[in-house]
């Protein structure tokens, strides 16, 4: 098993001096499906932001794909970002159709139109949104919005998906559908680290559950 994420002695203090992460150790291997569970303001988003190179690290070591992100040059940090599918909390889609949302990202990453459309179609197909390609993103229900966010994250075929609280605002049934979708993507080869403040239901998929309480992590299963 190759290691995708390795966190050692990771600590993070917010601007107002509050300890958000405290000596966090975590390892995520290729093919893992990991849920990081914790209450609101437990530091989940900061952890995702650090892993996604969106927040500058302060103390401790973060290795993603074997690279120490604190030592990456600006250019290499952007290269790494392109290999990570990141869905932030409260993701807001573009005021465009679903297809245009995904092709926008791919074209900005340098794909030509045909190539971008092909990849977008494949990504939307993987999350089951092919029947709504021409729908405006603003017309989507919360579950479809999460699916669009995931489609955007996987559209440029990264190996690692970081999902920051994708279940917020979803009903229990919709949450189960998201779990099931993540399990499906995991079986297709994506390594997934998702945060949630809700407890994970007993479902027919195997996932590692890690608790984040008071800035410290604790492996549950």
């Amino acid at each position, binding site marked *: 098993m190759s290691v995708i994420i390795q966190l050692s002695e990771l600590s993070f203090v917010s601007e107002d001096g509050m300890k958000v992460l405290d000596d966090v150790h975590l390892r995520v291997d290729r093919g893992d499906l990991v849920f990081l569970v914790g209450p609101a303001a437990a530091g989940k988003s900061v952890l995702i932001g650090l892993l996604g190179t969106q927040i500058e690290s302060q103390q401790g070591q973060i290795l993603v794909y074997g690279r120490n992100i604190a030592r990456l040059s600006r250019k290499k940090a952007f290269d790494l970002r392109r290999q990570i599918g990141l869905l932030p909390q409260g993701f807001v889609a573009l005021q465009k159709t679903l297809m245009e949302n995904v092709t926008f990202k791919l*074209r900005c990453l340098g794909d030509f139109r045909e190539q971008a459309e092909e990849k977008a179609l494949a990504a939307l197909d993987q999350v089951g949104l092919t029947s709504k390609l021409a729908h405006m993103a603003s017309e989507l229900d919360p579950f479809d919005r999460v699916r669009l966010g995931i489609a955007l994250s996987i559209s440029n075929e990264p190996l690692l998906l970081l999902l920051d609280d994708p279940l917020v605002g979803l009903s229990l049934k919709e949450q189960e559908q998201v779990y099931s979708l993540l399990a499906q993507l995991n079986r297709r080869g994506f390594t997934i680290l998702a945060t949630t403040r809700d407890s994970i239901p007993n479902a027919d998929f195997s996932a590692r559950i890690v608790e984040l309480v008071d800035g410290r992590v604790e492996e549950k299963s």
Partner: protein
Amino acid sequence: MSRFFFIFGNLLGAINGRIGWLFLGVVGLIFAALLIFAGFFLVGETTGQENGPALAPGEMVVYLSPQLSSDDVQSLYLKIRDMPETRTINYRFAQELGLDRTGGVFIIQAVSASAAASLQETIREMLGIINIDSVTEAQGATVSLSSALRLGLLVALIVSIVGSLILARYAFLLLLDRFSAEIKLLRLSGTSEGVFQPPVVALGVLCGIIAAMLLVVVVYLSHFLALSHPQATIHAACGLLLPGRVLMVSLVGSLIGIVLGGLIGVLGASLTAQERFQIYS
């Protein structure tokens, strides 16, 4: 390149009516600044003539001998009028022009500044001609502006530049707010500022180019208008009668417009670093 135009097209697509009007205002203020800059070189009276009437390049005053009969004057008039180098010819009494002489004068406008030299040579050979006054382009190049007008133009120039920067900042903030979801998505995807900031700069440059084009059109229209009515223009904007000056003002003005537009674009691009356009702050 296709990525640049793709993002630029999307950025333009985010412009709604209000933002569009604001950017038009920015273009207007840059244009105003350029027009004021042009005013420094084009407005005012030539200082080329010390003791005679103000003249435009290609224009000359031919002093006639007081001994000439009216038939002689008529004959000279017709002869000069029929020369190919002559555009217009008018007879005046010297007193009409405030000259301390007797007799009449011809005010002649040659078809061009270069034709004026040979026309002058030919006329000088004619009988009954005492003297010819003319102005060369180099002489006409000095434009005198009163210090009050100069100060007024300078203040207006500063106000219009500062105004364009303030208005552009506001317009860009509104535009980037409408484009913020795209900026955040680009940041998430691993797209560097080097990809999404150039189209923002280009929008500023575009404003500068439009203003510069307007300047060139207005300056050249005024130039052609001035050439067709040189006497009416000579005291107000003698620089407009100098083709070299008009070309210089158009070129330098355009360059300044593009640079000012670029500065405005850089100001807009710098706004993307604000917290509201970050995902994690």
